[in-house]
């Protein structure tokens, strides 16, 4: 069982959450006509072997979006906060 420390509800099992996606992508300005900017926003994703910033939706709880730092290789939850929170992303990859 993975536990995510929801900023409103407290520590909850990951079954209460739904994965949304990568939290590092910033939506381009609506007036942006440059296709590569949109392609990058919609499709291009890193697949890091290690820590990854992502958004989860706490559907069976406060129904808020939670920003989670999770190690993709080990599934360890390294931190959580509100979407506007600045959670530093470690640069290191995890060795298998």
């Amino acid at each position: 069982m993975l536990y995510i420390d929801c900023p409103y509800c407290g520590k909850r099992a990951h079954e209460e959450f739904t994965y949304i996606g990568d939290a590092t992508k910033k939506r381009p300005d609506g007036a942006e006509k440059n296709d590569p900017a949109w392609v990058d926003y919609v499709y291009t994703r890193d697949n890091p072997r290690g820590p990854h910033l992502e958004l989860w939706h706490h559907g069976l709880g406060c129904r808020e979006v939670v920003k989670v730092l999770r190690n993709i290789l080990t599934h360890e939850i390294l931190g959580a906060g509100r979407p506007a929170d600045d959670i530093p992303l470690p640069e290191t990859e995890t060795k298998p």
Partner: protein
Amino acid sequence: MADAVILARRSALAGILQPGDHGANRFDGPGIHLTERTPFSVVQIEARADTAPALADALEAATGTAPSLTPNQSAGTGRPRILGTGTGRWLVVEPEHRDLAAYLRGALPDTVAITDLSHARTVLRLSGRDTRTLLAKGCAIDMHASAFLADTSRMTGLFHAACLIDCRSAEPVFDIYVHRSYAVHLFEALLDGALEYGCRIA
């Protein structure tokens, strides 16, 4: 309230919630007591997170009960009781004796979103010595008396249905708010889980 007759609600559990004793016949009496609280007013109020403290003050002036800005903390003795369900969002609940939503609309600022959920929620009251064990069967959060204290509430999943669980007292007494369309599922799951302790439905 001229429309009281038209607005009379039919319980989602009408014909399903059968009063009486179910399951094990224990020498020390049933371990679970289950009732539906109806008619019951449930009104959601919501404001932007930055105006939440102002809303809390307005709510205290309007109802005499100050909502807690601390997550998971309930407030009030029941007339009304105010439960936090998210940042800047509360449920104001009480046994129905007035049009609570209309009253709050008149008493709170226009910037507050007020939604009457009385028809959309079913409220079950669970009590008895085995209540925490029963809830733990369908819920991943810690139900122990040292972790789930009186006058705290949790939004969570209970038997996979989204619920608000409010601990009214440490005896224990719990109120469970569930979406109306999941009421039958939740009731059947709770009753099935309660059979081994003995369940008295009133």
